[in-house]
């Protein structure tokens, strides 16, 4: 077999590079380490404990959104409305508190709103046949319109009871641990569990990877896609609750730009825009990497007005890397398949 010998001839470097390219989670981990090393030599402040702590703490909202986005991407969709939904849910929480509802009722209201928006997205896509990004773009416009009309452009304030400082992570829970960290961990466990160990998770991958295959196997494709959007709506609601606590007021433009950060983080974490690929761990690392990159750039002294450009650039780079990874892993996969069938390359 000439192929096995040629495989042995591959250098270790070759194999490491291939492995990093094929496994996106390893790749993003390597990238994160690289950023940290780079920073350690040039900017010691970066590795300062409090800076790292703040960095992780600040990445939590994007992290939760990115996890929801990952579920949608895995199922072959995309949710551009996730940022606006977050703002809308933050508004619902704040308004419910102001209305005099107890805390848990306010949180439930926010979650219900998130699920409702997700359901709306799902219906637009599966019932009316709109392409995913158009449906969620329309939802973005619709939801932000509702938020503006409702708030009349004035931020919602006056809802910050003491518990809300804990919810937002402004008051730590115990020691350095904040509630948003716990929540993010819980969201990760739940979503990771769903993707990895449940029928629903299997169906998310199936629908994203091959709609025909899933349909022929008896999977209710449309219902599964709808459920993915409900998950991302719920994730947006959780993020919105935290955001309401952290920001101490809810302006109508609270969620602007968060959709692109969530997409960037998910894609850095290895989620494929073509569906069927993505991991919760990847989304977490992706969100931290994104925060680290932005943090580093701020530390270097680039004004914050450049942030939009930086994030746009990172998104392009991430998608490009993802595309290369897909091509390489496709080749590796093909090579394996051919070896298995005894066809020499």
């Amino acid at each position, binding site marked *: 077999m000439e192929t096995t010998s040629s495989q042995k001839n591959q250098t270790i470097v070759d194999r490491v590079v291939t492995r990093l390219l094929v496994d996106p989670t390893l790749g993003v981990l390597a990238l994160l380490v690289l950023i940290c090393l780079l920073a350690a030599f040039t900017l010691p402040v970066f590795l300062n404990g409090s800076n790292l702590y703040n960095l992780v703490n600040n990445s939590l909202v994007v992290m939760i959104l990115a996890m929801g986005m990952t579920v949608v991407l895995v199922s072959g969709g995309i949710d551009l409305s996730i940022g606006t939904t977050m703002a809308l849910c933050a508004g619902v929480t704040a308004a419910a508190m102001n209305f005099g509802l107890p805390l848990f009722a306010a949180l439930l209201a926010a979650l219900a709103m998130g699920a409702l928006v997700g359901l709306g997205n799902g219906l637009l896509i599966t019932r009316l*046949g709109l392409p995913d990004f158009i449906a969620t773009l329309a939802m973005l416009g619709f939801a932000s319109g509702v938020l503006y009309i409702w708030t009349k452009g004035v931020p919602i304030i006056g809802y910050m009871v003491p518990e809300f400082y804990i919810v937002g992570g402004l008051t730590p829970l115990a020691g350095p641990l904040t509630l948003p960290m716990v929540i993010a961990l819980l969201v990760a466990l739940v979503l990771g569990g769903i993707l990895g160990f449940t029928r629903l998770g299997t169906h998310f991958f199936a629908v994203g990877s091959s709609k025909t295959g899933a349909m022929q196997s008896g999977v209710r494709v449309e219902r599964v896609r709808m459920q993915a959007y409900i998950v991302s709506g719920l994730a947006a609601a959780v993020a919105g609750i935290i955001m309401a606590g952290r920001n101490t007021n809810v302006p109508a433009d609270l969620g602007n730009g968060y959709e692109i950060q969530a997409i960037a983080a998910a894609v850095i974490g290895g989620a494929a825009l073509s569906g069927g690929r993505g991991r919760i761990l990847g989304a977490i690392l992706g969100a931290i990497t994104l925060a680290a990159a932005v943090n580093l750039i701020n530390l270097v002294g680039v004004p914050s007005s450049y942030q*939009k450009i930086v994030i746009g*650039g990172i998104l392009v780079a991430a998608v490009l890397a993802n595309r290369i990874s897909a091509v390489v892993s496709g080749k590796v996969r093909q090579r394996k398949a051919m070896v298995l069938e005894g066809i020499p390359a």
Partner: protein
Amino acid sequence: MNFPRAASRALSTSGVPIAIALVLVVVIFQIISPVFLTPGSVRDYINNAIPILLLTVGVAIVIVAGGIDLSVGTVAGLSAGTTMWALVSGAPTWTAVLVGVATGLVFGLFNGLMITVFGINDFIVTLATLNIAGGLLIVLTEQVPLQGVTTPGFSDLVYGNFLGVPTGFWIAAVIFALMQFFLIRTVFGRRIFAIGIAPGAANVAGVNVNRVRLGTFVLSGLLAGAAGVLLASRLGAVQAFLGNGYEFIAIAGAVLGGVSLAGGRGSVWAAVAGGLMLATLQQGLRLNGVDPVYFSIVTGLCIVAGVVFDRRIQQLALGSFRKRAKGGPTPPAPVKLQETHLLGTGKQD
């Protein structure tokens, strides 16, 4: 027997339904508030709508080719910014116009190359460039105050007068006519339709799919540049967030005009009619004292309405043909979107 067939054929011609709807809406608004059709008011609202109409046409051409361009709004804003920047730096009007159009061209080229060379999803690339262009305008406005320009001739681009009609109208009309001619009557336009209908089939038929796709993004970039120049000329000052959200209105206008998001169907006139419809709705709402923020909701609803209507028309056209269809459930013809994008363009390895 013949009437429904002819009617469905007419209705499935792109642009006809929206033109009828537009006339209806204008009549309704005129009845509600008789000041609606005064010459001054009509001139103002169309004048305001022209830049977005240009974006609508650009997006429509990209959509006909089976793609999407989300970056047009902020690119137009940035082009307005670079135009003003050139003027502030003392450049003459024609140089400033060139700078503005070139800005759009650069972004169109970048979008097109990323999409065709690297095979990345168009909406992700253009979502990224939406942010990059928007970010660049923020930075630009921080560096240079983009206002107070008195360069002779610049404001005449929009406010000048030729044969009793504002020059902005003439410029827009000429661009629209050129684009319509280009899309419907030229070889390149025919290829745009072909790749929008079925990129794989177009490729097998010898159409250079990537080159045509690149061309549509370049065109959309150029139109965004032109829209930016007209924006700058009309406003006289450029703010940091100029153009944000315009892509949304442009897509809604195109879809409302019957440009199919599935690709391969639509025309420039239809897109313009759709854009005018949105502008008219906005004006009508304004005249009747409705808060302008409702407009974003209206726009969102218009996208949905446009898509739903488009599918109904498709079924109607099919139904009238399918004479021998018996009773029983007939599922709607599956509308294929996006999925065929990478089929057979030869870029997968």
